[in-house]
């Protein structure tokens, strides 16, 4: 009733005031709903992101005045061997994560696709590691990979030597051991996405393949993979972007060690910013990481423009 009365009353008002009220209700009120989250978002994400561009051009400890030094930080990045080492590790990480979890999850999802009720149970249980917080997953595997009380020591006791090795403590294996643990946690997420995409493929296609005498492998290559192609390619892109940002498992398990052998850009940035108080240089590293992520997105957009169906 209230609004009805208001609208009748507004009809008695002078035209100008009425149009003001209308403007307020249709143009201003909708924005009042958006405003709180917008302000918060600008404060936390957008503003600091813009500020990072300025800080990356300064020499600054994070306290006091920042000294403008132009592109010096970026020159330093080019010469900094620690940075190069970290970037190399990110690229290794990228190579591992766009292959291994994809192979694992595609195979598992294609096995799950044919199952009915029991498939739900398998799906749920296989997804469990994904919901385990990183600190817990890392702690579980730090113990399982320990040469003293882990899987390797038990295998050595029953006569299978060679795996009672400190995988996380060796400069040769630390990065791969961390990637293994992160992947144990992560692959189930891809499986869930791929399974959902596979279940959307029309059953007729599989029936047709069967009539044509396709075996399981051919069915997978010629029906399943083309059927989930958009999801698959999107996830390759996202995982590639994430590879440059990975932090949790590296920091929790080795903090980049031993001897920087598992250092990645994020852990290097963390140390520069919060241990060495090089806020300017750290901002430049952050900007460079965004650049790599942006390059991945750019490559995909370029390929799509060129007419690739990605």
């Amino acid at each position, binding site marked *: *009733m209230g*609004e009805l009365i208001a609208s009748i009353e507004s009809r008695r008002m002078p035209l100008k005031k009425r149009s003001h009220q209308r403007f307020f209700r249709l143009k201003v009120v909708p924005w009042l*709903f958006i405003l709180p989250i917008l302000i918060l978002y600008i404060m936390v994400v957008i503003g600091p*992101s813009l500020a990072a561009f300025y800080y990356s051009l300064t020499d600054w400890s994070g306290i006091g005045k920042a000294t403008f030094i132009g592109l010096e930080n970026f020159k330093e990045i080019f010469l900094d061997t620690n940075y190069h080492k970290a970037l190399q590790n990110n690229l290794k990480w990228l190579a591992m994560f766009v292959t291994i979890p994809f192979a694992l999850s595609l195979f*598992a999802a294609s*096995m799950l696709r044919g199952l009915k009720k029991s498939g739900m149970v398998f799906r749920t249980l296989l997804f469990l590691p994904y*919901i385990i917080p990183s*600190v817990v997953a890392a702690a579980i595997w730090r*113990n399982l990979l320990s040469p003293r009380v882990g899987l390797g020591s038990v295998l050595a006791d029953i006569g299978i030597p060679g795996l009672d090795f400190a995988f996380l403590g060796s400069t040769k294996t630390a990065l791969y051991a961390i990637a293994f643990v992160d992947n144990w946690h992560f692959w189930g997420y891809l499986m869930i996405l791929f399974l959902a995409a596979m279940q959307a493929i029309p059953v007729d296609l599989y029936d047709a393949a069967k009539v044509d005498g396709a075996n399981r492998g051919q069915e997978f290559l010629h029906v399943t993979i083309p059927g989930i192609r958009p999801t698959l390619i999107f996830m390759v892109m996202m995982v590639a972007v994430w590879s440059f940002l990975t932090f*949790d498992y590296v920091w929790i398990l080795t903090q980049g060690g031993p001897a920087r052998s598992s250092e990645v850009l994020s852990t290097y940035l963390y140390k520069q910013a919060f241990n060495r108080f090089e806020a300017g240089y750290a901002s430049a590293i952050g900007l460079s990481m965004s650049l790599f992520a942006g390059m991945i997105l750019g490559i995909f957009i370029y390929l799509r423009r060129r007419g690739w169906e990605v």
Partner: protein
Amino acid sequence: MNWIIRFRQRDSLLPNYAVLTLYLLFALLPLLILVFNSLKSRPELANDPLGPPNVLHFENFSNAWVMGKFSTTTRNSAFLVVSTVTLVLTLGGLASFSLARLNPPGSNIFMALMVVGATLPIWLFMVPLFILWRKLGLINNLFGLVLIYTAMNAPIAIFLLRSYMVQLPADFEDAARVDGANDLQIFTNVVLPLVWPGFLTVGLVVGMGVWGEFQIALIFVTNPDLFPITTSYWQFTSRFSRDWTLTSAAALMMIAPILVLFLSLQRRFIEGLTQGGIRM
């Protein structure tokens, strides 16, 4: 020999079950060993680090609870989860409602901002954000952390909630408007009761993320009294790294709430994660 023949038949599901069982062992054995070890004594663990316990040592849990300061950290994490979920659903819900039903002029600019923001790496704005938060006195402040979590989850929440609200038919809303309800009343009395399952989905995904969040908490909270469960557990595992019985018991207490929630509401969880929660 019958089963071999069945195994090789084209439509047999036996190979599927065989492969999936191997997967299951890979995914769940580490968790099973965690449960075993949380119930052993230290000498038993040293002798047999993988097998089931002989005597059940439930006191590991109470010891871990006390030594891990779980009464403090659980409270801190619960505060973070409840406040973040409430703020995300309230502020994100209001914005989504406006975007879906009120047609604000220039709303595509806002959506573009959210898309760009969602793809910005957290490491780009971490240092300036830290400096800003220090100026505002929000370091070592749980509410400061809540604000960050809320903003970081805003894009996902808005994409999801908006997509639920766009699907609603306009009839209910029009009827309420004729009855004189204003926009806010329409949101709380008409739209909310219809899309609450969507809010539950978003709340679950956001809540689970906050409960396990590590890197932002590591940077923004350095006072041990304010540690959430994750950073405190990390310190606990390095302090008691030689006592795997204690750290296992602590780990189980930490994942128990999310395991229960996940297993009881897993369809909703998975829907939220697959539809909008694109994250690592």
